Protein backbone atom coordinates (compact mmCIF):
# COMPACT_ATOMS: atom_id res chain seq x y z
CA UNK A 1 0.00 0.00 0.00
CA UNK A 2 2.81 2.41 0.92
CA UNK A 3 4.50 1.63 -2.44
CA UNK A 4 1.25 2.35 -4.31
CA UNK A 5 0.86 5.68 -2.53
CA UNK A 6 4.44 6.62 -3.33
CA UNK A 7 3.97 5.61 -6.97
CA UNK A 8 0.92 7.90 -7.30
CA UNK A 9 2.88 10.80 -5.78
CA UNK A 10 5.70 10.13 -8.27
CA UNK A 11 3.16 10.31 -11.12
CA UNK A 12 1.62 13.54 -9.80
CA UNK A 13 5.01 15.23 -9.50
CA UNK A 14 6.25 13.95 -12.85
CA UNK A 15 3.14 14.81 -14.86
CA UNK A 16 2.85 18.24 -13.30
CA UNK A 17 6.48 19.13 -13.95
CA UNK A 18 6.24 17.87 -17.55
CA UNK A 19 3.49 20.28 -18.54
CA UNK A 20 3.92 21.90 -21.00
CA UNK A 21 6.25 19.20 -22.31
CA UNK A 22 7.76 21.14 -25.25
CA UNK A 23 11.07 21.91 -23.48
CA UNK A 24 11.43 18.32 -22.30
CA UNK A 25 10.61 16.93 -25.76
CA UNK A 26 13.16 19.29 -27.31
CA UNK A 27 15.86 18.04 -24.94
CA UNK A 28 15.00 14.42 -25.62
CA UNK A 29 15.29 15.16 -29.36
CA UNK A 30 18.68 16.83 -28.80
CA UNK A 31 19.82 13.81 -26.80
CA UNK A 32 18.58 11.44 -29.52
CA UNK A 33 20.31 13.51 -32.21
CA UNK A 34 23.61 13.39 -30.36
CA UNK A 35 23.26 9.61 -30.30
CA UNK A 36 22.61 9.54 -34.04
CA UNK A 37 25.54 11.88 -34.74
CA UNK A 38 27.84 9.48 -32.92
CA UNK A 39 28.38 7.71 -36.26
CA UNK A 40 30.50 10.70 -37.31
CA UNK A 41 32.94 10.12 -34.45
CA UNK A 42 36.16 8.24 -35.26
CA UNK A 43 35.84 5.87 -32.32
CA UNK A 44 37.05 2.31 -32.10
CA UNK A 45 36.24 1.17 -28.54
CA UNK A 46 32.97 1.07 -26.50
CA UNK A 47 34.28 3.46 -23.76
CA UNK A 48 35.32 5.92 -26.47
CA UNK A 49 31.81 5.78 -27.97
CA UNK A 50 30.35 6.55 -24.52
CA UNK A 51 32.73 9.48 -24.02
CA UNK A 52 32.03 10.89 -27.48
CA UNK A 53 28.25 10.82 -27.04
CA UNK A 54 27.64 11.29 -23.34
CA UNK A 55 30.13 14.10 -22.69
CA UNK A 56 27.97 16.64 -24.53
CA UNK A 57 24.73 15.11 -23.26
CA UNK A 58 25.94 15.38 -19.65
CA UNK A 59 26.31 19.14 -20.14
CA UNK A 60 22.69 19.42 -21.39
CA UNK A 61 21.48 17.08 -18.64
CA UNK A 62 23.21 19.15 -15.95
CA UNK A 63 21.57 22.37 -17.11
CA UNK A 64 18.21 20.60 -17.24
CA UNK A 65 18.69 19.29 -13.70
CA UNK A 66 19.56 22.80 -12.54
CA UNK A 67 16.05 23.81 -13.62
CA UNK A 68 14.12 20.73 -12.49
CA UNK A 69 15.93 19.93 -9.26
CA UNK A 70 16.70 23.42 -8.10
CA UNK A 71 14.51 26.11 -9.62
CA UNK A 72 11.32 24.00 -9.91
CA UNK A 73 11.75 22.64 -6.40
CA UNK A 74 11.85 26.18 -5.00
CA UNK A 75 8.65 26.85 -6.93
CA UNK A 76 7.05 23.72 -5.51
CA UNK A 77 7.81 24.80 -1.95
CA UNK A 78 6.93 28.46 -2.45
CA UNK A 79 3.56 27.81 -4.15
CA UNK A 80 2.49 25.54 -1.31
CA UNK A 81 2.29 22.33 -3.35
CA UNK A 82 5.02 20.69 -1.27
CA UNK A 83 3.17 21.31 2.03
CA UNK A 84 0.15 19.71 0.34
CA UNK A 85 2.19 16.62 -0.60
CA UNK A 86 3.27 16.40 3.03
CA UNK A 87 -0.31 16.10 4.25
CA UNK A 88 -0.60 12.72 2.51
CA UNK A 89 -0.07 9.61 4.61
CA UNK A 90 3.48 9.29 3.28
CA UNK A 91 6.51 9.87 5.49
CA UNK A 92 8.73 12.90 4.99
CA UNK A 93 11.71 10.67 4.20
CA UNK A 94 9.82 8.86 1.43
CA UNK A 95 8.56 12.20 0.07
CA UNK A 96 12.17 13.47 -0.02
CA UNK A 97 13.19 10.35 -1.90
CA UNK A 98 10.30 10.75 -4.35
CA UNK A 99 11.33 14.33 -5.07
CA UNK A 100 14.89 13.14 -5.73
CA UNK A 101 13.63 10.46 -8.08
CA UNK A 102 11.38 12.76 -10.08
CA UNK A 103 13.67 15.78 -10.10
CA UNK A 104 17.12 14.21 -10.47
CA UNK A 105 17.28 10.48 -11.05
CA UNK A 106 14.58 9.91 -13.65
CA UNK A 107 15.42 12.96 -15.84
CA UNK A 108 19.11 12.04 -15.89
CA UNK A 109 18.26 8.39 -16.54
CA UNK A 110 16.14 9.36 -19.55
CA UNK A 111 18.40 12.10 -20.95
CA UNK A 112 21.54 9.96 -20.69
CA UNK A 113 19.75 6.72 -21.53
CA UNK A 114 18.26 7.69 -24.89
CA UNK A 115 21.53 8.73 -26.61
CA UNK A 116 23.24 5.68 -25.10
CA UNK A 117 20.63 3.39 -26.65
CA UNK A 118 20.69 5.26 -29.99
CA UNK A 119 24.50 5.30 -30.24
CA UNK A 120 24.59 1.67 -29.10
CA UNK A 121 22.38 0.77 -32.07
CA UNK A 122 24.07 3.11 -34.57
CA UNK A 123 27.58 2.02 -33.60
CA UNK A 124 26.76 -1.57 -32.73
CA UNK A 125 29.82 -2.90 -34.56
CA UNK A 126 31.99 -0.98 -32.06
CA UNK A 127 29.78 -1.13 -28.95
CA UNK A 128 29.02 -4.81 -29.54
CA UNK A 129 32.68 -5.65 -28.97
CA UNK A 130 32.14 -5.17 -25.23
CA UNK A 131 28.68 -4.03 -24.13
CA UNK A 132 29.72 -4.34 -20.47
CA UNK A 133 32.38 -1.63 -20.85
CA UNK A 134 29.89 0.62 -22.62
CA UNK A 135 27.38 0.09 -19.78
CA UNK A 136 30.02 0.84 -17.12
CA UNK A 137 30.84 4.13 -18.84
CA UNK A 138 27.14 4.97 -19.06
CA UNK A 139 26.73 4.32 -15.33
CA UNK A 140 29.76 6.58 -14.68
CA UNK A 141 28.02 9.44 -16.51
CA UNK A 142 24.79 8.70 -14.63
CA UNK A 143 26.63 8.88 -11.28
CA UNK A 144 28.29 12.15 -12.36
CA UNK A 145 24.82 13.55 -13.16
CA UNK A 146 23.61 12.46 -9.69
CA UNK A 147 26.51 14.40 -8.17
CA UNK A 148 25.43 17.59 -9.95
CA UNK A 149 21.76 16.91 -9.19
CA UNK A 150 22.52 16.51 -5.48
CA UNK A 151 24.35 19.84 -5.42
CA UNK A 152 21.45 21.53 -7.23
CA UNK A 153 18.73 20.09 -5.03
CA UNK A 154 20.64 21.16 -1.91
CA UNK A 155 21.21 24.63 -3.41
CA UNK A 156 17.44 25.04 -3.78
CA UNK A 157 17.13 25.13 -0.01
CA UNK A 158 19.17 28.30 0.22
CA UNK A 159 16.83 30.57 -1.67
CA UNK A 160 13.18 31.47 -2.01
CA UNK A 161 13.57 32.67 -5.60
CA UNK A 162 13.41 30.26 -8.54
CA UNK A 163 15.72 32.45 -10.64
CA UNK A 164 18.37 32.77 -7.94
CA UNK A 165 18.22 29.04 -7.34
CA UNK A 166 18.82 28.30 -11.04
CA UNK A 167 21.70 30.80 -11.16
CA UNK A 168 23.35 29.34 -8.04
CA UNK A 169 23.05 25.82 -9.46
CA UNK A 170 24.37 26.66 -12.92
CA UNK A 171 27.20 28.72 -11.41
CA UNK A 172 28.01 25.81 -9.12
CA UNK A 173 28.14 23.44 -12.07
CA UNK A 174 30.42 25.70 -14.12
CA UNK A 175 32.55 26.35 -11.04
CA UNK A 176 33.05 22.62 -10.53
CA UNK A 177 33.97 21.91 -14.15
CA UNK A 178 36.15 25.04 -14.40
CA UNK A 179 38.03 24.00 -11.24
CA UNK A 180 38.71 20.64 -12.84
CA UNK A 181 39.99 22.26 -16.05
CA UNK A 182 42.17 24.80 -14.19
CA UNK A 183 43.72 22.08 -12.00
CA UNK A 184 44.47 20.01 -15.12
CA UNK A 185 46.01 23.03 -16.87
CA UNK A 186 48.27 23.95 -13.94
CA UNK A 187 49.15 20.31 -13.50
CA UNK A 188 50.13 19.98 -17.17
CA UNK A 189 52.04 23.28 -17.42
CA UNK A 190 54.00 22.84 -14.17
CA UNK A 191 54.10 19.07 -14.46
CA UNK A 192 52.46 18.52 -11.08
CA UNK A 193 51.10 14.99 -11.27
CA UNK A 194 48.81 15.16 -8.23
CA UNK A 195 46.89 18.13 -9.71
CA UNK A 196 46.29 16.15 -12.88
CA UNK A 197 45.05 13.24 -10.81
CA UNK A 198 42.71 15.46 -8.76
CA UNK A 199 41.34 17.06 -11.94
CA UNK A 200 40.87 13.63 -13.47
CA UNK A 201 39.12 12.28 -10.40
CA UNK A 202 36.52 15.07 -10.54
CA UNK A 203 34.98 13.33 -13.55
CA UNK A 204 34.03 9.78 -12.63
CA UNK A 205 33.87 8.88 -16.34
CA UNK A 206 37.55 9.92 -16.74
CA UNK A 207 38.61 7.56 -13.97
CA UNK A 208 36.61 4.64 -15.35
CA UNK A 209 37.84 5.36 -18.89
CA UNK A 210 41.42 5.18 -17.61
CA UNK A 211 40.69 1.92 -15.85
CA UNK A 212 39.05 0.38 -18.92
CA UNK A 213 41.90 1.47 -21.18
CA UNK A 214 44.51 -0.02 -18.86
CA UNK A 215 45.90 3.15 -17.23
CA UNK A 216 46.76 2.50 -13.58
CA UNK A 217 44.32 4.27 -11.27
CA UNK A 218 44.72 4.69 -7.51
CA UNK A 219 41.71 3.74 -5.39
CA UNK A 220 41.14 7.27 -4.06
CA UNK A 221 40.60 8.56 -7.62
CA UNK A 222 37.81 6.04 -8.14
CA UNK A 223 36.12 7.01 -4.89
CA UNK A 224 36.11 10.83 -5.18
CA UNK A 225 32.86 11.32 -7.14
CA UNK A 226 30.84 8.40 -5.71
CA UNK A 227 31.73 9.34 -2.12
CA UNK A 228 30.95 13.04 -2.60
CA UNK A 229 27.68 12.05 -4.29
CA UNK A 230 26.70 9.63 -1.55
CA UNK A 231 27.56 12.18 1.14
CA UNK A 232 25.45 14.83 -0.60
CA UNK A 233 22.59 12.41 -1.20
CA UNK A 234 22.49 11.33 2.45
CA UNK A 235 22.74 14.99 3.51
CA UNK A 236 19.82 15.77 1.20
CA UNK A 237 17.62 13.03 2.61
CA UNK A 238 18.42 13.89 6.24
CA UNK A 239 18.25 17.64 5.69
CA UNK A 240 15.09 17.70 3.58
CA UNK A 241 13.30 15.33 5.92
CA UNK A 242 13.70 18.19 8.41
CA UNK A 243 13.30 20.94 5.79
CA UNK A 244 9.94 19.54 4.72
CA UNK A 245 8.45 20.63 7.98
CA UNK A 246 6.74 23.64 6.46
Amino acid at each position, binding site marked *: *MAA*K*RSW*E*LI*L*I*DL*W*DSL*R*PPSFDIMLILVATLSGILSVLEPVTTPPAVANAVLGAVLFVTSLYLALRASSDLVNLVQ*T*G*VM*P*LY*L*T*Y*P*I*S*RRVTSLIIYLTRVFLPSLILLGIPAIVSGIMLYPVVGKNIGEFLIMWIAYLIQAQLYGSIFILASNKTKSTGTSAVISITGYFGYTATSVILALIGSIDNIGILNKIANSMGFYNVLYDMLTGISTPLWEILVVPIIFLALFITYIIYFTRRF*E*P
Partner: protein
Amino acid sequence: MEDIIIIDSVTKKYGKLIALDNVSLRVKKGEIMALVGPNGAGKSTLIKTSLGLLKRDSGKVLLFGKDPFFDPNARRSVGVIFERPSLPVSMPILEFLTHVSKIYNKDSKIIREVIELVGLKGKENTPFSQLSAGQRQRAAIAHALISEPELIIADEPTSNLDPVERNKILDLFTKINKENQLTIIISSHVLHELLRVSNKIAILKSGKILKVGTPDDIVKNVSIARIRCKNPLKIKENLEKIGFSLNAEGDNLYVKTESNEKTSLLLNVLSQEIKNGEQIYGIELIEPGIEEILEG
Protein backbone atom coordinates in the same frame (compact mmCIF):
# COMPACT_ATOMS: atom_id res chain seq x y z
CA MET B 1 -18.00 11.72 22.37
CA GLU B 2 -14.74 10.40 21.04
CA ASP B 3 -11.72 12.73 20.91
CA ILE B 4 -10.38 13.06 17.35
CA ILE B 5 -7.46 15.27 18.31
CA ILE B 6 -5.78 15.52 21.67
CA ILE B 7 -3.27 18.33 22.07
CA ASP B 8 -1.67 18.23 25.47
CA SER B 9 0.71 20.92 26.80
CA VAL B 10 2.30 21.53 23.40
CA THR B 11 5.07 24.08 23.09
CA LYS B 12 6.63 25.03 19.77
CA LYS B 13 9.44 27.55 19.38
CA TYR B 14 10.96 29.13 16.28
CA GLY B 15 14.37 30.10 17.61
CA LYS B 16 13.61 32.38 20.54
CA LEU B 17 10.02 33.04 19.45
CA ILE B 18 7.46 30.94 21.31
CA ALA B 19 4.80 30.18 18.70
CA LEU B 20 2.79 27.82 20.94
CA ASP B 21 3.05 28.13 24.68
CA ASN B 22 1.85 25.06 26.60
CA VAL B 23 -1.29 24.71 24.48
CA SER B 24 -3.89 22.06 25.30
CA LEU B 25 -7.01 21.41 23.24
CA ARG B 26 -9.35 18.54 22.46
CA VAL B 27 -11.57 18.25 19.42
CA LYS B 28 -14.46 15.83 19.59
CA LYS B 29 -16.07 13.90 16.76
CA GLY B 30 -18.66 15.92 14.84
CA GLU B 31 -17.57 19.31 16.18
CA ILE B 32 -16.83 22.37 14.11
CA MET B 33 -14.00 23.86 16.11
CA ALA B 34 -13.00 27.42 15.21
CA LEU B 35 -9.49 28.61 15.97
CA VAL B 36 -9.69 32.37 16.15
CA GLY B 37 -6.91 34.82 16.78
CA PRO B 38 -5.08 37.78 15.31
CA ASN B 39 -2.27 37.30 12.81
CA GLY B 40 0.72 35.69 14.52
CA ALA B 41 -1.41 34.16 17.28
CA GLY B 42 -0.17 30.66 16.44
CA LYS B 43 -3.20 29.28 14.56
CA SER B 44 -1.25 27.91 11.58
CA THR B 45 1.49 26.55 13.84
CA LEU B 46 -1.14 24.78 15.95
CA ILE B 47 -2.72 23.29 12.81
CA LYS B 48 0.62 22.13 11.40
CA THR B 49 1.67 20.68 14.74
CA SER B 50 -1.66 18.85 15.01
CA LEU B 51 -1.05 17.32 11.58
CA GLY B 52 2.49 16.28 12.47
CA LEU B 53 3.95 18.59 9.84
CA LEU B 54 5.89 20.51 12.47
CA LYS B 55 7.98 19.04 15.25
CA ARG B 56 6.88 20.26 18.65
CA ASP B 57 9.41 21.09 21.34
CA SER B 58 7.37 19.49 24.10
CA GLY B 59 3.92 18.09 24.79
CA LYS B 60 1.81 15.42 23.19
CA VAL B 61 -0.31 15.33 20.02
CA LEU B 62 -2.62 12.44 19.19
CA LEU B 63 -4.54 12.40 15.91
CA PHE B 64 -6.93 9.44 15.78
CA GLY B 65 -4.92 7.97 18.63
CA LYS B 66 -1.56 8.18 16.79
CA ASP B 67 1.27 10.67 16.94
CA PRO B 68 1.15 12.21 13.45
CA PHE B 69 4.76 13.42 13.52
CA PHE B 70 6.04 9.87 13.71
CA ASP B 71 3.20 7.96 12.05
CA PRO B 72 1.99 9.39 8.70
CA ASN B 73 -0.94 6.94 8.79
CA ALA B 74 -2.49 9.22 11.42
CA ARG B 75 -3.32 11.55 8.49
CA ARG B 76 -5.17 8.88 6.49
CA SER B 77 -8.62 10.19 7.44
CA VAL B 78 -7.73 13.88 7.37
CA GLY B 79 -8.40 16.37 4.60
CA VAL B 80 -6.36 19.57 4.73
CA ILE B 81 -7.07 22.96 3.21
CA PHE B 82 -4.37 25.59 3.42
CA GLU B 83 -4.84 29.36 3.41
CA ARG B 84 -3.57 29.73 -0.14
CA PRO B 85 -5.14 26.91 -2.14
CA SER B 86 -2.27 25.15 -3.88
CA LEU B 87 -2.76 22.25 -6.19
CA PRO B 88 -0.35 21.32 -8.99
CA VAL B 89 -0.90 24.20 -11.39
CA SER B 90 -0.85 22.55 -14.79
CA MET B 91 -2.81 19.41 -14.02
CA PRO B 92 -6.56 19.25 -14.73
CA ILE B 93 -8.55 18.88 -11.51
CA LEU B 94 -10.04 15.52 -12.49
CA GLU B 95 -6.65 14.01 -13.30
CA PHE B 96 -5.10 15.27 -10.07
CA LEU B 97 -7.98 14.05 -7.95
CA THR B 98 -7.78 10.64 -9.67
CA HIS B 99 -4.17 10.24 -8.53
CA VAL B 100 -5.02 11.48 -5.03
CA SER B 101 -7.94 9.02 -4.75
CA LYS B 102 -5.44 6.23 -5.47
CA ILE B 103 -3.11 7.52 -2.75
CA TYR B 104 -5.99 7.07 -0.32
CA ASN B 105 -7.10 3.82 -1.99
CA LYS B 106 -10.57 5.21 -2.72
CA ASP B 107 -13.00 4.27 -5.45
CA SER B 108 -12.98 6.63 -8.44
CA LYS B 109 -16.72 7.39 -8.06
CA ILE B 110 -15.84 9.60 -5.07
CA ILE B 111 -14.19 12.05 -7.48
CA ARG B 112 -17.43 12.88 -9.33
CA GLU B 113 -19.27 13.10 -6.02
CA VAL B 114 -16.90 15.65 -4.48
CA ILE B 115 -16.66 17.70 -7.67
CA GLU B 116 -20.44 17.94 -7.69
CA LEU B 117 -20.58 18.67 -3.95
CA VAL B 118 -18.20 21.62 -4.17
CA GLY B 119 -19.86 22.99 -7.32
CA LEU B 120 -17.06 22.43 -9.81
CA LYS B 121 -19.07 20.37 -12.27
CA GLY B 122 -18.05 21.42 -15.78
CA LYS B 123 -14.60 22.48 -14.59
CA GLU B 124 -13.18 18.97 -14.16
CA ASN B 125 -10.80 19.24 -17.07
CA THR B 126 -9.63 22.76 -16.31
CA PRO B 127 -6.09 23.10 -14.95
CA PHE B 128 -5.88 24.57 -11.46
CA SER B 129 -4.07 27.67 -12.75
CA GLN B 130 -7.08 28.61 -14.90
CA LEU B 131 -9.62 28.63 -12.07
CA SER B 132 -10.84 31.75 -10.27
CA ALA B 133 -9.92 32.32 -6.60
CA GLY B 134 -13.23 30.92 -5.39
CA GLN B 135 -13.03 27.92 -7.71
CA ARG B 136 -9.48 27.23 -6.52
CA GLN B 137 -10.68 27.13 -2.94
CA ARG B 138 -13.49 24.77 -4.01
CA ALA B 139 -10.93 22.58 -5.77
CA ALA B 140 -8.86 22.53 -2.57
CA ILE B 141 -11.97 21.49 -0.63
CA ALA B 142 -12.68 18.75 -3.19
CA HIS B 143 -9.09 17.58 -2.75
CA ALA B 144 -9.57 17.51 1.02
CA LEU B 145 -12.74 15.42 0.64
CA ILE B 146 -11.22 12.81 -1.67
CA SER B 147 -9.93 10.71 1.21
CA GLU B 148 -13.51 10.51 2.58
CA PRO B 149 -12.06 12.07 5.72
CA GLU B 150 -13.43 11.98 9.22
CA LEU B 151 -11.69 15.28 9.92
CA ILE B 152 -11.14 18.37 7.80
CA ILE B 153 -8.60 20.96 8.86
CA ALA B 154 -8.90 24.30 7.10
CA ASP B 155 -6.34 27.02 7.75
CA GLU B 156 -7.93 30.40 6.99
CA PRO B 157 -9.81 29.02 3.97
CA THR B 158 -11.66 32.26 3.29
CA SER B 159 -8.86 34.77 3.66
CA ASN B 160 -8.34 35.38 -0.07
CA LEU B 161 -11.99 35.49 -1.05
CA ASP B 162 -14.56 38.24 -1.55
CA PRO B 163 -17.50 38.41 0.93
CA VAL B 164 -19.89 36.51 -1.36
CA GLU B 165 -17.45 33.66 -1.90
CA ARG B 166 -16.54 33.64 1.81
CA ASN B 167 -20.16 33.00 2.74
CA LYS B 168 -20.54 30.31 0.07
CA ILE B 169 -17.43 28.49 1.27
CA LEU B 170 -18.54 28.67 4.93
CA ASP B 171 -21.98 27.38 3.94
CA LEU B 172 -20.24 24.52 2.16
CA PHE B 173 -18.38 23.62 5.36
CA THR B 174 -21.67 23.63 7.30
CA LYS B 175 -23.26 21.41 4.64
CA ILE B 176 -20.35 18.97 4.72
CA ASN B 177 -20.48 18.84 8.52
CA LYS B 178 -24.22 18.13 8.57
CA GLU B 179 -24.42 15.71 5.65
CA ASN B 180 -21.25 13.72 6.29
CA GLN B 181 -20.97 14.15 10.07
CA LEU B 182 -17.42 15.40 9.57
CA THR B 183 -15.36 16.98 12.28
CA ILE B 184 -14.01 20.32 11.08
CA ILE B 185 -11.28 22.55 12.44
CA ILE B 186 -11.31 25.94 10.82
CA SER B 187 -9.10 28.91 11.58
CA SER B 188 -9.63 32.57 10.88
CA HIS B 189 -8.83 35.97 12.29
CA VAL B 190 -12.41 37.08 11.58
CA LEU B 191 -14.53 36.00 14.53
CA HIS B 192 -17.98 36.93 13.26
CA GLU B 193 -17.83 34.68 10.21
CA LEU B 194 -16.94 31.66 12.36
CA LEU B 195 -19.64 32.42 14.93
CA ARG B 196 -22.30 31.27 12.50
CA VAL B 197 -20.65 28.01 11.45
CA SER B 198 -18.83 26.72 14.52
CA ASN B 199 -20.15 25.03 17.62
CA LYS B 200 -16.94 25.49 19.61
CA ILE B 201 -14.41 28.31 19.53
CA ALA B 202 -10.84 28.54 20.81
CA ILE B 203 -9.36 32.03 21.02
CA LEU B 204 -5.61 32.22 20.58
CA LYS B 205 -3.26 35.08 21.23
CA SER B 206 0.55 35.11 21.36
CA GLY B 207 0.72 31.32 21.25
CA LYS B 208 -1.71 30.77 24.10
CA ILE B 209 -5.31 29.62 24.17
CA LEU B 210 -7.16 32.30 26.10
CA LYS B 211 -10.70 30.95 25.93
CA VAL B 212 -12.47 27.82 24.73
CA GLY B 213 -16.22 27.50 24.60
CA THR B 214 -19.38 27.59 22.57
CA PRO B 215 -20.04 30.74 20.51
CA ASP B 216 -22.49 31.89 23.20
CA ASP B 217 -19.90 31.35 25.93
CA ILE B 218 -17.36 33.34 23.99
CA VAL B 219 -19.46 36.25 22.82
CA LYS B 220 -21.88 36.32 25.78
CA ASN B 221 -23.87 39.54 25.44
CA VAL B 222 -21.10 41.65 24.01
CA SER B 223 -22.24 43.55 20.96
CA ILE B 224 -21.13 46.60 19.11
CA ALA B 225 -23.46 49.34 17.99
CA ARG B 226 -22.36 51.30 14.94
CA ILE B 227 -24.05 54.68 14.83
CA ARG B 228 -23.83 56.88 11.77
CA CYS B 229 -24.81 60.45 12.52
CA LYS B 230 -24.35 64.06 11.49
CA ASN B 231 -22.76 65.25 14.73
CA PRO B 232 -20.78 62.33 16.20
CA LEU B 233 -18.81 64.44 18.68
CA LYS B 234 -21.90 65.70 20.45
CA ILE B 235 -23.49 62.25 20.70
CA LYS B 236 -20.15 60.81 21.84
CA GLU B 237 -20.01 63.36 24.63
CA ASN B 238 -23.55 62.59 25.75
CA LEU B 239 -22.99 58.83 25.73
CA GLU B 240 -19.69 59.08 27.60
CA LYS B 241 -21.45 61.11 30.30
CA ILE B 242 -23.64 58.11 31.11
CA GLY B 243 -20.79 55.61 31.11
CA PHE B 244 -20.56 54.17 27.61
CA SER B 245 -17.13 53.45 26.17
CA LEU B 246 -16.94 54.31 22.50
CA ASN B 247 -14.72 55.14 19.56
CA ALA B 248 -15.33 57.68 16.81
CA GLU B 249 -14.20 56.94 13.25
CA GLY B 250 -15.29 59.63 10.79
CA ASP B 251 -19.08 59.93 10.95
CA ASN B 252 -19.31 56.57 12.73
CA LEU B 253 -19.44 55.91 16.44
CA TYR B 254 -18.71 52.40 17.73
CA VAL B 255 -20.26 51.68 21.12
CA LYS B 256 -19.57 48.49 23.02
CA THR B 257 -22.40 47.10 25.14
CA GLU B 258 -22.00 44.15 27.48
CA SER B 259 -25.58 43.36 28.41
CA ASN B 260 -29.09 43.55 27.02
CA GLU B 261 -29.86 46.28 29.55
CA LYS B 262 -26.96 48.39 28.26
CA THR B 263 -28.09 47.90 24.66
CA SER B 264 -31.64 48.89 25.62
CA LEU B 265 -30.33 51.96 27.45
CA LEU B 266 -28.26 52.94 24.43
CA LEU B 267 -31.25 52.71 22.10
CA ASN B 268 -33.35 54.79 24.51
CA VAL B 269 -30.66 57.47 24.68
CA LEU B 270 -30.39 57.56 20.90
CA SER B 271 -34.17 57.76 20.63
CA GLN B 272 -34.08 60.79 22.90
CA GLU B 273 -31.29 62.34 20.80
CA ILE B 274 -33.47 61.97 17.69
CA LYS B 275 -36.38 63.60 19.50
CA ASN B 276 -34.03 66.46 20.41
CA GLY B 277 -33.34 67.04 16.74
CA GLU B 278 -30.06 65.16 16.25
CA GLN B 279 -29.73 63.55 12.85
CA ILE B 280 -28.93 59.85 13.12
CA TYR B 281 -28.69 58.12 9.74
CA GLY B 282 -28.36 54.55 10.91
CA ILE B 283 -27.90 52.28 13.93
CA GLU B 284 -26.56 48.79 13.44
CA LEU B 285 -25.85 46.14 16.06
CA ILE B 286 -22.92 44.02 14.95
CA GLU B 287 -21.17 41.02 16.44
CA PRO B 288 -17.96 41.85 18.27
CA GLY B 289 -14.55 41.38 16.74
CA ILE B 290 -11.73 39.45 18.30
CA GLU B 291 -10.30 42.61 19.88
CA GLU B 292 -13.52 43.30 21.80
CA ILE B 293 -13.68 39.69 23.01
CA LEU B 294 -10.08 39.80 24.17
CA GLU B 295 -10.66 43.12 25.91
CA GLY B 296 -13.85 41.80 27.54
